[in-house]
């Protein structure tokens, strides 16, 4: 199977993104470097939330507690950074995120309660935990954390925030995808019974995928902290946005199909659409209607193309 056919969905999304950037430029001729930078910054927490969600959807599950875990991580880092250096605080936060994800995963595997129920319950648990850690927005962010996402690197127009995100996601995802664990994640999501019979440790694989989800959520929380400079205990609108981007990004709900690049491009597409509608001075209430319509339209169109591609050969 050729590279193009295998990555058709992602390539289509890239094309769509380029078109949308062109449209933005048309509407607002002075949309340029600073526009791109702020776009990338604003997309950062969405991108991490989406990466987190993509991993568990690929393994055949779903995690409704992503936004709450991000809130816990954001306040944890903000509180820690008041008393200790930025780097240890970040490391502890990442560990906390991974641990939360692992707890979600182990609960799902051990209790055999459906993932949607467990993570819905954990959504409330983590939400409360965040408020226990910090009951009003507060704490502090290490200065380098703020600087890490402002401006461009190497050349103008290559936003630092984008590069940082690309590096973090690549460092976690690429080795994972090329490992036996990565294969096991796809196998479990595709057909759990066949994976079990093929010798995959299905339970551990799921737990590991949820842990990776927690790790990405921790990065999401840190990006929130670096954006605002303070810890925010109330979860933002990241949960459903992440599910939307995952679906638009070509990951099949139910598991086994898709990657992480597509969903992240989908995040940018959704952000650019919002920018365009804002620039075009569309009523904000209409904006969400348009976003929803585009999402359904793209997924339907993609499914239609795939069906034709799979027809009589």
């Amino acid at each position, binding site marked *: *199977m050729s590279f193009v056919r295998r990555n058709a969905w992602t390539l289509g999304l890239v094309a769509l993104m380029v078109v949308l950037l062109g449209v933005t430029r048309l509407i607002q001729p002075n949309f340029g470097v600073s526009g791109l930078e702020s776009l990338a910054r604003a997309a950062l927490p969405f991108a991490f939330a989406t990466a987190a969600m993509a991993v568990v959807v690929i393994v055949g599950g779903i995690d409704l507690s992503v936004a709450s875990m991000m809130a816990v991580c954001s306040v944890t880092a903000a509180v820690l950074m008041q008393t200790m250096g930025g780097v240890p605080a970040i490391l502890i936060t990442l560990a906390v995120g991974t641990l939360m994800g692992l707890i979600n995963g182990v609960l799902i595997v051990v209790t055999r309660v459906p993932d949607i129920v467990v993570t819905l319950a954990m959504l409330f648990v983590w939400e409360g935990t965040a408020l226990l850690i910090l009951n009003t927005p507060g704490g502090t962010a290490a200065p380098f954390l703020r600087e890490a996402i402002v401006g461009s690197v190497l050349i103008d127009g290559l936003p630092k925030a984008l590069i940082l995100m690309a590096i973090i996601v690549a460092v976690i995802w690429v080795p994972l995808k090329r490992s*036996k664990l990565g*294969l*096991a994640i*796809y*196998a479990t*999501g*595709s*057909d759990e*019974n*066949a*994976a*079990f*019979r*093929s*010798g*995959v*440790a299905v339970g551990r694989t799921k737990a590991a995928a949820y842990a990776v989800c927690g790790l990405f959520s921790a990065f999401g929380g840190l990006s929130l902290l670096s954006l605002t400079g303070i810890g925010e205990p109330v979860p933002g609108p990241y949960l459903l946005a992440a599910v939307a981007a995952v679906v638009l990004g070509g990951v099949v709900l139910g598991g*086994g*199909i898709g990657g992480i690049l597509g969903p992240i491009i989908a995040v940018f597409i959704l952000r650019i659409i919002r920018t365009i509608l804002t620039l075009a001075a569309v009523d904000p209430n209409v904006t969400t209607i348009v976003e929803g319509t585009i999402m359904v339209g793209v997924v339907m169109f993609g499914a239609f193309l795939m069906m034709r591609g799979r027809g*009589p*050969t």
Partner: protein
Amino acid sequence: MTSKNDAMSTGMTDTLLDAQNVAKSFGAVRALTDASLTVRRGEVVALMGANGAGKSTFVKILTGAIRPDAGRVTIRGTEARVGSPAEARRSGLVPVYQEPSLIPDLDVADNLRLGDTDAETFRHWAAELSHPELRLDAMIRDLPLATLRIIDLARALASTPDVLLLDELTAALPTDLVERVLRVARQQAEDGRGVIYISHRFAEIAELCDRATVLRDGRSVGDLDIAPGIEDRVVEMMLGARIDLGQRAAETARPKPGGAPRLRVQNLAAAPKLTDASFELHPGEVLGVVALEGQGQDELFEVLAGMRKPAAGTVEIDGTPARFSHPADAIAAGLKFVPGNRAEALFRERSLRENIAMPFSARARSWGPLRLRHEKARVAEAVERLQIDTRAQGEVQRLSGGNQQKVTIGRWLAHGVETLLLFDPTRGIDVRTKRQIYPLVRELAEQGAAILYYTSELAEVPLACDRAVVIFNGRVVDIVEAVDATEERLMRAAYGLTSAEGAA
């Protein structure tokens, strides 16, 4: 035969797998009470039993999918602490199931990596099993079932198992592949390994196996050497009492029913495989359909069931042309389809009663309140008529395979059958249930039903059918009367070798 005996005498003392007094209960249901099985080096052992005898539970215990309540399983003399399929594999027992355990969304190469299978060894076995052209980058979900079974088997062989377990592997497999599978399995034994072979087909067992262990009601009731004429004894053991062997439906040629045909199919074509099918099906007739895997029979049945639109040709019912845009149209026209895969027909989590009653309440205009008493009576009638075991009727998925199959047929009986489209109704079910299905099919025909009966087992044709159409390469190539329907004759036709005397 001599090679079998040699292998047995040399390997007599060397036990590869020894399972003794294995028991397992699920709640109040005692699936296994005292099951035992030994496999020695160089042996192919058949594991036999009627549906519900505990065979699948026993297999799950041997392969580590579930833990036994009692008993012990030793592999090569050491107690096997088999807690998962992965551990069973490591201890040397590798199973290959009827449903291939391959991951649909990964390609062949990734599926091999998943189990650390060496690609070169895999290629060797795949070639041995007739798939030299197999591409490693093909997606599993794009491949036909027969190929998947071969991949699954080749993968198992590549891990050089001490004991290979083949569970109903040849059901619905084309005959040429069956022969290669049997040859390779025999070769395994000759190389000093062991094979456990599970099948409902006596012919294969007689050809391949050295011994047979028979399960009945959760216990091992016999262990006997394969010898000519053993079928009767095995059947006797499986059933607990001697029963009649299947009777031929047609000892003499039945006259072709006169009058107007119920169903007339002319020059029917449907993508991708069916190119030209013409035949007539009369009331009171059971018309067999014989074909190797993938010759267009799937498309034929799907068109007749309203699930697929024909590319060309006509279907007439009682003389009026019919075109279906939804399965409901076909059902309304009296064409009742029973798919080969039970999972496609049943609502697994729902009760026996709802499953049987569904066709009465499926139409939108009957969406009002259920006519419970009426429904109850009809369901009871279907259960009675098919002798469905109702002990686990709360959820259809807990019934045994044979009983599930009866439910798929039974749901159409309550309504009065006009035309029944049976697609391999005896696939993977036990001898006893099969023998209940043949007379049922005959009885329905005698009551005036017209029945189209696809079967992957050639021996069924004379048992159930009046005549059979043979499809090869998308075309009807021959029509064989049941009295002439020897396996040889059907086989030749199915391979497209229609001989001179075939012009019946």
